[in-house]
Each structure stands twice: as structure tokens, then as C-alpha cells.
């Protein structure tokens, strides 16, 4: 017989309680894994948007201190920035959440400058890009958005009381774009009553530009155009206020769930130690050192935690995959589950198990064998 077998038998003896403890930890881990995976998916999807467009710098206007990219700025800045050395092309963008069709929930609506490089990466599944200067009132739907709205090429979509013709349905490797709609920039500005204003400027840099030159260019932009800030594509994903909020919520919710899991674990092990007082007394009576008793209880705790972690990781991943297929979340969430995330989940659970097991183990080890044997 091995210590491992003894531990297994101890846990299996009260299997319902052990399984409930595992379930408690699993809920905490699953919520953490799901939320962290969704946050990572959000970040990566956002980063892919710019990578796919070939935009190297994103310029936006930040509110002072809060760094919230919500305010518009003059579209005329685009030509000033296009004239800077190292800049190959610029494209003004409006990015806004709007109700498309009255009954639908808000979707991401983008306005792209006609003829800009942004249109080059668009992969149309149906229809064609016809956004010439004279082509008014046409809209392009991301494939997920089209499915959600049940629209096809030639149908009409209403946006802010304006009837728009679906000119194409596009597919992107970014969840955001697949769930979004796309309009020529002047059309969206007109719908919003915000002519001549944009809230993002996508910049494509010259291929030969060096990292040092990019830094210098960013400083130039920020120095010359007060209030504007230039980000590299990956930075805008990481600095996204939505992402930061999601990560903070993820951390808070996961911490609470894990704390509950740890308390459940401690409760289970304490009950187990109380119930097994005379058995632990027997182990010490036959000469078991205190550290072996401590190791046994801590291992029981860690095994419960790791089992909870395994269940939680699976539940979290499967849960997100299922949510991704559900109507109201389709195209809105994408889970990215790296080995690092899964490893972190197991490490946190093991730590949790150790923490939850310390007090019961210390209590067991502090028993006098004589008193413990008499407790029966």
C-alpha cells in the first residue's frame, strides 16, 4: 500500500462530500478560465482587426487622464498626418455602437474612408464593394451580423431611421468584424450628423521604417497634434478600456469564486479531520511523524483542488464554446485558451488547496495521540 492509495481511500470514503468540494472549486476555476479566455479572445480579436487591415499605428483622441477613446476629432488631421515622414497611407474611421434594425441589440458600426487601404483586406462572401463617391446608402454586414439580422445581399437594413441596402456580406478572421457592419465613412458621418469628424485614424507606415523612427513619429504626432495619441496595433488592444474592465471583472469574480472554493475546501477537510480524530490518533500512535500526517491532509486538499481545476478548466472551455454558438452571444465573444492560462488555473487551484489544507493539517498534527485515541 502507498500513501497515495490511503489518501484516495480517505477521499473516496466520503465521496459525495469530496465531489461537492471538487464541484465548488470547479465553479471558481471555470468562471476564472471562461472570463480570462473571453478577455484574451477579445484582446486577440481586437489586435487581429488592425493586423488584417495592415494598420501599423492607430491614432485616437484621449480624454485627459482617463484615457477613454471616445471623443471625435477633425478628419482634416488625416492629411496633416499623411504628410509626415514614414507615413505611407492614412484612413479615417468612425467606430460606434448603434442599433441596426429597431429591435436588434446594438452592434459595432464602422465607417471607412472610401478608397482607403482598409477596404483592401475585406473578403466578401457575397455582393461586391461599390463604395464609390457616388454610391450612397449601401451597407456591408459581417457574416455573423448578417446571420443575426437574417439579411442577405439586396435586403434593406434600417439604421437611425435611414434605409440602407445590403451591398455585401464580408468575412474576417476577427470576431469583431464578423459581428460588425461597415459603411462608407461619409454615409455614417451623415447618419450620425457628425460630418467631417472621425474618432480613429489608421496609419500604414512605410515598409522601410525602423522601430526608432516609429517611436519618433509617435512623439511627433503627439507633440504636434494636441490631444491625439498614437498607439501601435497591439497596444490599443491591451489599452482597450473594455478589455481592462473585463479583466478587472474577471479577476474580481474569479477571486470571489475561488475564495468560496477555498472556504469549502477548508470546511470539508476540517470536518474530515474532526471525523477522523481517532484514526489520526492511531496513525500517530503507531509512530507516524507529524509531518507525514500534515502531508497526508495537504495532499488530500491539493488532490481535491486539482480535480476541481481539471473539471473547471473543461467546464470553462466547453461553456464558452457553447456560449459562442448561442444566438445572442454569437459573434460577440471568442474564447482563447492558451496552455499558460490552463497552467495558471492548475497552479492557482493547487495553491488554493495548500491554503485550504493548512489549518486542518496543522490541527490534525497538533493532536495528542492519546487524546485523539480517547475521542472515539
Amino acid at each position, binding site marked *: 500500500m502507498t500513501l497515495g492509495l490511503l489518501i484516495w481511500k480517505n477521499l473516496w470514503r466520503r465521496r459525495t462530500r469530496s465531489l461537492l468540494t471538487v464541484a465548488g472549486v470547479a465553479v471558481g476555476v471555470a468562471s476564472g478560465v471562461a472570463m480570462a479566455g473571453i478577455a484574451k479572445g477579445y484582446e486577440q480579436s481586437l489586435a487581429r482587426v488592425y493586423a488584417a487591415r495592415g494598420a501599423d499605428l492607430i491614432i485616437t483622441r484621449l480624454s485627459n487622464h482617463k484615457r477613454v477613446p471616445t471623443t471625435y476629432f477633425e478628419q482634416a488631421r488625416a492629411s496633416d498626418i499623411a504628410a509626415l515622414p514614414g507615413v505611407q497611407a492614412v484612413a479615417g474611421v468612425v467606430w460606434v455602437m448603434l442599433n441596426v434594425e429597431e429591435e436588434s441589440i446594438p452592434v459595432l458600426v464602422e465607417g471607412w474612408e472610401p478608397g482607403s487601404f482598409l477596404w483592401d483586406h475585406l473578403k466578401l462572401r457575397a455582393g461586391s464593394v461599390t463604395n464609390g463617391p457616388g454610391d450612397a446608402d449601401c451597407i456591408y454586414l459581417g457574416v455573423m451580423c448578417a446571420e443575426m439580422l437574417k439579411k442577405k445581399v439586396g435586403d434593406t437594413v434600417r439604421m437611425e431611421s435611414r434605409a440602407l441596402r445590403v451591398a455585401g456580406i464580408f468575412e474576417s478572421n476577427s470576431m469583431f468584424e464578423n459581428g460588425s457592419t461597415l459603411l462608407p465613412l461619409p454615409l455614417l458621418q451623415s447618419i450620425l450628423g457628425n460630418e467631417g469628424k472621425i474618432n480613429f485614424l489608421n496609419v500604414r507606415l512605410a515598409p522601410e521604417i525602423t522601430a526608432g523612427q516609429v517611436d519618433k513619429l509617435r512623439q511627433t504626432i503627439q507633440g504636434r497634434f494636441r490631444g491625439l495619441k498614437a498607439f501601435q496595433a497591439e497596444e490599443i488592444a491591451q489599452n482597450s478600456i473594455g478589455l481592462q474592465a473585463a479583466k478587472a471583472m474577471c479577476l474580481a469574480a474569479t477571486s470571489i469564486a475561488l475564495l468560496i472554493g477555498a472556504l469549502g475546501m477548508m470546511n470539508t477537510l476540517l470536518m474530515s479531520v474532526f471525523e477522523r480524530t481517532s484514526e489520526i490518533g492511531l496513525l500517530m500512535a503507531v509512530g507516524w511523524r507529524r509531518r507525514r500526517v500534515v502531508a497526508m491532509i495537504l495532499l488530500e486538499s491539493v488532490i481535491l483542488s486539482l480535480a476541481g481545476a481539471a473539471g473547471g478548466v473543461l467546464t470553462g472551455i466547453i461553456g464558452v464554446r457553447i456560449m459562442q454558438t448561442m444566438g445572442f452571444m454569437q459573434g460577440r465573444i471568442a474564447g482563447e485558451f492558451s496552455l499558460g492560462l490552463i497552467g495558471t488555473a492548475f497552479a492557482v487551484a493547487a495553491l488554493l488547496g495548500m491554503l485550504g489544507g493548512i489549518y486542518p493539517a496543522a490541527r490534525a498534527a497538533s493532536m*495528542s495521540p492519546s487524546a485523539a485515541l480517547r475521542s472515539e
Partner: protein
Amino acid sequence: MSAETILALQGVRRVFDGGRVVALQGVDLAIQAGDFVALVGPSGCGKSTLLHLLGALDEPDAGEVRFGGAKLVGTAVRSRCRARNIGFVFQSFHLLPTLTALENVQIPMFEMPWSSGERQCRAESLLREVGLEARLHHRPSELSGGERQRVAAARSLANQPQVILADEPTGNLDSASAARVLDLLASFHRERGLTLVVATHDPDVAGRASRRITMRDGRILTDTPSLP
């Protein structure tokens, strides 16, 4: 203290409940290697407390306990002494309910430098010695009281101790099972030369011992060789 003394108590006092219950007061005792000692006396006279102190399961409030001349002070020292030198048999068996007989006998062996295979082999041999070769894979709930106590007796020999301490070993058994367990313990003493100390109410057990210590109110009343 003679050279053959294996267990010795000197001026041992043990109280419980903040001093309100005096279990042992000023007990001096020396047990020689190879003795078969019966501790007798009414319930609450301090037999079990004395046995627990002899077995390094407890520590005295005053006085000292020695095993083989070495003072038993400190948790680690007492724990090592129990693992290597002392085997226990209790009235209520104290078998782990989830483990089989074979596994229960291996429990003390974790403190010895033996492999899992060696532990199993040795446990099988001990269970065969107590006549339980057909019950190796039975759990305590599947064994009779006498069989459980024989498993406990086999477990007490697990680490080749010098001393066996038995606390009312026949107290929960019918007379036939009690006789068999008693024969077994007596055979450990006789054939292995083990020191055997038994706390008992059973006159048959006391009658088999070579020395009878009678206790009352936490003191040793008489300490005499048993009649042949």
C-alpha cells in the same frame, strides 16, 4: 534501574481537566525486558493513562518516562520510539475502516525504510501468523471482533517492536475469541521474547501474566509476581 529495565517511570504525575482529575500521582515503575505484566484495577484507576505514558502516547505533567534508559522528551523522540520499539493493541481495535486487513497491518510500516512490496510481503506473513491468511483483503466491517483484534495484533508486530502494550485487548470479545487473542499475545511474549504489558479487567489475562500490578486512585497498590 537494572540493566535489563526496558521501561521506567519515575515520580510520574498526570492530571486532566486543568488539574481537577488526577489520573496518576507519583508513580514509580520499572519493567524488565521480556516481562509479561498485567495492570489490573477498577475502572478509572489510571491503568490506561499509565499504559499511554509507557507507550509514549502521552507526556507526564511531572516525573519522567524512559525507554531503554533514554528519556522520552519531545514529540519527535516519542514518535520515533513508538514507531521502532512499541506495538499497540487497543480494546476497540482502531483499524482504519476503509483499508483491508492487509493494508491496516502496513500502516505502521510507513515509518520504516521498506519498499511497498516489502511492506506487503511482511504484512501477509504477519496475518498468516495470526491465522488470517483467508481474510487478507477483507475490510474491518467484514471481519468478526476476534478477527479484527487479530489484525490489530498483527499490526502491533509490524515494525518488529520490543514491547507490546495492550489496553483491554479482550474487552470487546466473546470468551472464545478472547482466549484466542490472549493465546496469540502470550505466544508473542513466549516465542519472540517481547515485553508484554496488558491493562485488563479479565482475570484470565491477569492469570497468564508473570507480574501483576494492581492500581487504585492513580497509584500502584501492589506489584507482585503472579502465582504460577
